[in-house]
């Protein structure tokens, strides 16, 4: 079966564009998180072992820039995925426009602070392996 190209013009600015990319991001980040989070869990629980996790574990882990990149991806996808999910939940459950704006602003602020703290730690953490 041949594919038909749709005539141009449907790439327009506006709410549909944002919602379209938000939907796409949820798919991409969902698949990425499945791999990232499961591997993180297996690594910490079985490769290292929960009883052995201490500050030095983090120091050794972040002495490798690839692990920092891994944790950055985990934080970025988890935060983005979670916040966008929260946004849709607020859209559906908070009816009053005033409350909707207030709750969304609060969620965005908390998300920004959590993200900023996480990124700051990941990229400025500088403790030599002892």
């Amino acid at each position, binding site marked *: *079966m041949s*594919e*038909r*190209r*749709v*005539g*141009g*013009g*449907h*790439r*327009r600015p*506006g*709410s*549909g*564009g*944002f*919602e*379209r990319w*938000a*939907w*796409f991001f949820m798919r991409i980040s969902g698949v990425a998180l499945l791999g990232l989070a499961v591997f993180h869990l297996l690594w910490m629980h079985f490769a290292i072992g929960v009883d052995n996790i201490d500050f030095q574990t983090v120091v050794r882990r972040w002495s490798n820039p690839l692990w920092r990149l891994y944790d950055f991806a985990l934080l970025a996808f988890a935060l983005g995925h979670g916040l966008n999910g929260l946004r*849709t939940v607020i*859209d*559906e*459950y908070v009816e009053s426009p005033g409350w909707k704006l207030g709750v969304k602003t609060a969620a965005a602020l908390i998300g920004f602070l959590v993200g900023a703290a996480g990124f700051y730690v990941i990229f400025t953490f500088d403790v030599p392996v002892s």
Partner: protein
Amino acid sequence: MDVTFTIRRYQPEVRDDPYYEDFEFEAEPTDRVLDCLNHIKWQIDGTLAMRRSCQTGICGSDAMRINGQNRLACKTLLQDVGSEVTIEPLMGYAVIKDLVVDMDPFFDQFRRVKPFMMNEGSDPERERVQSQEERERFDDTTKCILCAACTTSCPVFWSDEDYVGPAAIVQAHRFIFDSRDDGTAERLRILDDAEGVWKCRTVFNCTKACPRDIEVTKAIAEVKQAAMWGRV
């Protein structure tokens, strides 16, 4: 068999609030729920208001909540729902009386996706030829009877009456994937909207509710793909 029908009544000319009323009578297990409702209306209480027309599962008039699930009363046998049956109107639309809801918003959304063949350019001199594969592409969504069972089972629609809803997307799908139609870009533009296909959360209630067994969620996913990548 002895059956008890508990029906959610709303009679605005008699009392302001809705209430539940029990009706007990004898029926055959092979009777349809619609036969029972007709029995109640004709033999017990003539004030019961409900919609039904063809009574053979084609017109889509008698969609209602039967034991909590959206179904057509004319396609539901008593033996499949038991002897104690709760009947309620569809959720999400204003109830006018008893089981009759205001379907105007439903048909407003239906009209929004332009559910008709659109032709750009001059009319062809002969019929538009379509291969079996091209017809098969949208065969499933041609089965829709506009009963609103899918839309009124959708939790996103319950919380947002502006959401275009699964039924309208099914109707759009029927034309978007029709090789003879020229309105694909326009319909995708309409559905590529905050209140369009992106509102769908893939809950699958619509697929479960459809009395015509249309794979509604799959159809919505196909429209999302088309809107995302701009091709069908």
